């Protein structure tokens, strides 16, 4: 084959993700590859082209990734680079390539591998009016969620043959179908714990954040893990939001392209701020975003680094995390329900009739100071779980999640239909509590919110005094609010 210099220029379109935001990137074949990610890409692409028994052009090849200011990271550029090089060398028709967005990594033998974030890329292409996406076969179900036509390719040769119009790639058949997710742990496993269970049900019904305090070994974590099991499944739009985030984070199981149930995330307390709220040069979503539309469990909350805890205040307020980087600003949704557990003191002896707290006043104060007022204010429901005495351990099993979930769903429906009005008696009780307890303005608003949920769970027409009284039982105790 012979080529004139001006012929050696071709373009493939792909998308690069800034956070979850797909940005159009054009791959022009003709410049020395500079980016780190692309240095590796060069070797993979050359090897892949050779493996596909295609010709690697004998010219000095320059590949330009435009726009230049976009930070291009990841292996998703392999496929568009290979295709643009092949188009420049007239081995693939350029006009046909222009009807596609290409996104995928190449193995050295030319196989196309799936990469993270396919859903967001496919959505970007779809929004830009590009009719088809070329991607790894394994990514097909995920990409198809965007509504775009997916051309699944297993090998570079297959992509080339398809673009030349020689044959259609075989349709992708999932090897194991859409397997259901493992069921969440069941509330029926919990013995006794009547009040924390009730608070969990209220949290599920009203979307309240829940703080479980008490000595170690009282089942706080066990309870917290059971919240997702009583939450209703995700609505279609929510499922797409969650899937997009999980796809970018590379956490999507191939057999479950669409996340249908509320996610559950329980980062360890040694997690860094970036791990919790997201970050890195990429930047990548953190645990708070992975828990979007689901539950974020912070076990032993005071053990977390204070900056990590404080960083959670933004998403708790706005439902999103904004990460500014030199290369751009990424916005990750993070509307999660927070469940936290904590001991009542550093030694764990407090609230335990069989043990004595050995903490000094200073240590106790430092422990409590770690939880800022602003953070504690985000918990509508606070439940102190004391250690049960031996004879109390004979408590019966509680209701199973399957019995609780319908009540939660019904209450959610009622709450979505609009807030209930308070009766005069309920207002009077609330006013008395503000004086007597006392409650701050924020504390009052929290009690009023929870009272609304109590009433909705009870199926009442209005918020009565008894609903406010129960809501008051879950207020932040003075011993946590002020040491």
């Amino acid at each position, binding site marked *: 084959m012979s080529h004139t210099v001006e012929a050696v220029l071709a373009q493939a379109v792909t998308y690069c993700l800034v956070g979850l935001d797909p940005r159009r990137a054009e791959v022009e074949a003709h410049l020395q590859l500079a980016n780190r990610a692309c240095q590796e890409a060069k070797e993979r692409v050359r090897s892949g082209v050779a493996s596909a028994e295609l010709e690697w052009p004998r010219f000095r090849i320059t590949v330009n990734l435009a726009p230049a200011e976009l930070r291009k990271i990841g292996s998703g550029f392999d496929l568009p680079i290979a295709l643009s090089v092949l188009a420049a060398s007239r081995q693939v028709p350029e006009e046909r390539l222009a009807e596609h967005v290409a996104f995928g990594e190449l193995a050295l033998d030319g196989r196309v591998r799936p990469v993270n974030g396919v859903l967001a890329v496919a959505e970007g292409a779809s929004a830009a009016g590009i009719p088809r996406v070329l991607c790894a076969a394994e990514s097909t179900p995920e990409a198809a969620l965007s509504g775009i036509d997916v051309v699944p390719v297993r090998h570079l040769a297959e992509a080339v043959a398809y673009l030349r119009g020689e044959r259609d790639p075989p349709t992708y058949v999932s090897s194991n179908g859409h397997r259901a997710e493992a069921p969440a742990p069941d509330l029926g496993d919990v013995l006794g714990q*009547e*009040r924390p269970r009730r608070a969990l049900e209220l949290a599920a019904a009203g979307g309240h954040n829940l703080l479980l305090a008490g000595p170690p070994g009282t089942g706080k974590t066990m309870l917290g893990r059971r919240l997702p099991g009583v939450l209703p499944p995700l609505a279609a739009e929510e499922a797409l939001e969650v899937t997009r985030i999980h796809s970018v984070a590379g956490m999507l199981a191939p057999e479950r392209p669409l996340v249908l149930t509320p996610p559950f995330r329980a980062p360890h307390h040694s997690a860094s701020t970036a791990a919790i709220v997201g970050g890195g040069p990429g930047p990548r979503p953190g645990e708070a975003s992975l828990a979007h539309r689901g539950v974020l469990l912070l076990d032993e909350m005071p053990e977390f680094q204070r900056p990590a805890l404080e960083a959670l205040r933004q998403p708790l307020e706005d439902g999103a995390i904004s990460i500014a980087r030199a290369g751009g600003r990424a916005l990750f949704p993070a509307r999660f329900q927070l469940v936290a557990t904590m001991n009542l003191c550093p030694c764990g002896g407090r609230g335990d009739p069989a043990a*004595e707290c050995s903490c000094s006043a200073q240590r106790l104060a430092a422990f409590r100071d770690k939880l800022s007022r602003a953070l504690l204010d985000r918990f509508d429901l606070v439940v*102190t779980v004391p250690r049960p*005495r031996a004879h109390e351990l004979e408590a019966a099993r509680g209701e199973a999640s399957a019995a609780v979930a319908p009540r939660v769903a019904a209450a959610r429906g009622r709450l979505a239909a609009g807030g209930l009005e308070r009766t005069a008696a309920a207002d009077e009780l609330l006013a008395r509590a503000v004086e*007597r307890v006392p409650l701050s303005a924020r504390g009052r608003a929290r009690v009023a919110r929870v009272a609304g949920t*109590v009433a909705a769970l009870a199926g009442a027409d209005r918020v009565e005094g*008894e609903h406010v009284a129960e809501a008051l*039982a*879950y207020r932040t105790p003075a011993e946590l609010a002020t040491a």
Partner: protein
Amino acid sequence: MSRDLALAAFAASTGAHVVSAPRGARFGVFLDSFDAGRFTADLAGRGFRFVGRSEAGFPPLLTAIHDPPPGLFLRGDGGLELLAGTGVGVAIVGARACSAYGAAVARMLGRELAAAGAVVVSGLARGIDAEAHRGALEASGPTVAVLGCGIDRDYPAAHAELARRIGEHGLVVSEYAPGVEPAPWRFPARNRIIAGLARATIVVEAREASGALITADFALEEGREVFAVPGEITSGLSAGTNALLRLGATPLTAASDVLEALDLTPPEAPALELGTDAEAVLALLRDGPASADALTRASGLEAGAVGAALVELELAGLVAEAAGVFRGVMPAG
């Protein structure tokens, strides 16, 4: 008065503890340059007051101790009569790292005593002190916090809001001028003022060799009543109070013990109308403290109903909660 004020200002400027004019030229030099009018105006500008020990308004009980301070700096809207005789001061002191039991008892005593007209005096510290103040505030009674630093310093910082609420009807007082930093040695000196302002001192929970026992010692030296709340003999937090009992302190089993000793009458208990759930829960709590879960199982009620009943009882002052354990509080009388 201006000499008292000069003495207090001199103490602040030297960082020393001064109760009478020191010998030597230093105080004389300070006195010459001291502008009492300006100092007072400065205090008033910040909403503070000063009462010197030679003034008529100075608490007589405090004058009676063997080393009364030169005067007291006052912050808050409470009147001087809180300290000066018409109010009956009762000190409630104890451990900072108290147990749930101690916290519940301190709050209950603060509330019952304030409701009967006593002025609860304590030190704004964490633990027992704060609970006693809070209890008095719950009964809408005035309470006095004695600090071991300047009254403009909210110490500990976590109690800034509590200090503000105390100041609404009561007083935050200190013998130290505004600006004086808290220092460990100032707290035992502060304790003599707590004991000195009160006709009776109650120690709720104290370890051996703790600050609360220093307060009790001051009270005993001045011939004031000392009460100790009995605790578990196995708990280190009760070692100090049990030692006081062995030495002859009066055991305190209800707020009425103190009220009788001070000739105070508890207020008429308003006829409470409790719901049937609340009555049932209260009856169960007569057998001893219990968690909400244990009460739920024992009563056969729904967890939510028990929660509402407990709140009803708490608001009525019949139940106290600490660390998730609820205790029935027997009203005074």
